[in-house]
């Protein structure tokens, strides 16, 4: 290594001499190292912070039964505040579920098109556009839900309010689709060409090659992409806050308004007294959300890595 350097720089007399370059080199090394591990520090820091803030509630007012099985979220009730997140979980789950129904066919279709069919300029511009779609701020999506989808849903389905699961599910599906498309496309690209060639040699049509060979081979990567989309849907806040109607409700149909876990934190956290049970209960929801998204993202990552190794 040092020899290589001497040869490259040529006129440098002694490699061990501590000149300015040496210091810059050291400093840059440390800076890069710090940025490298900053993700770890941040994630541990956030988890510790969220846990500390929510801990008082877990010790004192927390009742497992009430928290997970009661559908009444009434943290500001004077007489007997109840902290039940069942209805909020149902809200998040129903919206995310519908979002996946919307996003999976969309993103799988466009991933197959971009990876297998599109060529040249079409392919490049499509990839750029998909990435651009992922960059639209969620508040803009929320605004679309509020001002375009809302009257549209009222008109088409003749329901009293258009701020409901259907609205939020479609919006969230469109938001999750780009990231799912990118990852699914990567997974399809990772399938070696010899698979396709072999299938074609056996006389398969284009669709048969994709359906019988490429998709099964890319199965894990596709699943990982879908899971990341689920994680995105689970954690999304602003668009969901604006498009769901923000009503605590056990949904019975897609036209019911609901409220998501994330939206509850966003709407209430800034307005509670720091350290009060309500404040801590919100952080407990935060711990719960953090755990769920962590599990989803981790399993997605493991699945994707699994396919790359094998």
């Amino acid at each position, binding site marked *: 290594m040092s020899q290589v350097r001497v040869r490259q720089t040529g006129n440098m007399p002694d490699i061990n001499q501590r000149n300015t370059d040496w210091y810059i080199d050291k400093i840059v090394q440390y800076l890069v190292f710090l940025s490298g591990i900053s993700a770890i520090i941040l994630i541990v820091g956030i988890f510790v912070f969220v846990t500390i803030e929510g801990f008082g509630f877990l010790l004192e007012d927390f009742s497992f039964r009430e928290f997970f099985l009661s*559908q009444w979220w009434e943290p500001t009730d004077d007489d007997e505040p109840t902290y039940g997140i069942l*209805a909020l979980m149902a809200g998040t789950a129903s919206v995310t579920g519908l979002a996946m129904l919307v996003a999976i066919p969309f993103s799988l279709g466009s991933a197959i098109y971009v990876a297998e069919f599109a060529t040249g300029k079409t392919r490049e511009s499509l990839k750029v556009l998909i990435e651009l779609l992922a960059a639209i701020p969620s508040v803009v999506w929320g605004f679309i839900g509020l001002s375009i989808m809302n009257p549209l849903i009222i008109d088409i389905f003749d*329901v*009293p*309010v258009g701020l409901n699961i259907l609205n939020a599910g479609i919006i969230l599906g469109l938001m999750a689709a780009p990231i799912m498309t990118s990852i699914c496309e990567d997974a399809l690209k990772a399938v070696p060409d010899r698979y396709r060639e072999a299938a074609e040699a056996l006389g398969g049509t284009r669709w048969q090659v994709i359906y019988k060979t490429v998709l099964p081979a890319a199965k894990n990567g596709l699943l990982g992409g879908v899971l990341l989309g689920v994680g995105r849907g689970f954690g999304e806040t602003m668009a969901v806050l604006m498009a769901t109607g*923000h009503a605590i409700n*056990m949904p019975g149909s897609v036209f019911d*308004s609901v409220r998501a876990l994330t939206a509850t934190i966003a709407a209430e956290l*800034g307005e509670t007294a720091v350290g009060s049970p309500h404040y801590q209960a919100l952080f407990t929801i935060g711990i719960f959300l953090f755990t769920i998204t962590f599990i989803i993202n981790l399993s997605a990552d493991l699945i994707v890595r699994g396919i790359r190794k094998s």
Partner: protein
Amino acid sequence: MKARPIAMFFVAAATVISSQHLAANDLIQNKGSDTLVNVAQAWAEAYPAINPGVTVAVSGGGSGTGIAAMINGTVDIANASRKMKDKEKKKAKESGQDPVEFVVGYDALAVFLHQDNPATEFSFTQLGKIFGRGGDTTKWSDLGLKVPGCGSDKIVVVSRQNNSGTNAYFKSSVLKAAAKAGVISKGSFRQGTLDMHGSKDVVDLVEKTPCAIGYSGLAYATDHLKLACISVEDGASCVSPTVATASDRSYPIARPLFMYTNGQPKGSIKEYMDWILSDAGQCILKKKGYAPVRDVNCM
């Protein structure tokens, strides 16, 4: 969390900088009730003409926000459309604040309907059955009404988020009374109410939704809404929400509006509070659609 110390730093920095450059320019932080925010803003805008040395920074967010900020010690004056709870007062004392209460006006809490809605009056019992937990009025036809434009017949119940003083007042007056009368199981809201984040959002949604019923401060009413006439007892004569009926307390859901200062106000904060309660301040409040604390003669 993190934003508060940073915000405080900026406020402190701004105060230091401004006090260095513009002699004696005081900044009063005023925050809270969404019901009060319009008039608080109007006061803040009119005040520099009276006392050019003082700037008042107003923000809304709900009574809970203001009270939380008072407890956390990040505001000079907190606005609230409900009284501070004993628990909150205790909490404030514990963290070194001493909230002092001022009643700065009264507000009629109006029940809003879509303008095509044929309904005109509601009793507390009827409202309780619509808004309250266990209430059995979920369709407009349950009230014998056919609302044009509302094909599904379902009543869309529009409410406010749970830290709102408006929400708390509606609950403690209308729903508690209905629960006492035994028409609903508990004096709190039913599930599935659309909890809006501000009075203006309630108004917007009710304006656009024929099936909707909502409530908010009278000052937010627009020409595109219908205001319901309210009676306490079934069959009793009802009273419409106006500044006059809120002033003489004949409107049954009129509530006091509060401002809280940290300790007995001193200096520029005291001058500001005195001015708010003076005829000039109260006339601004009246002009904005609220009822003044006493009879005032305004131009």
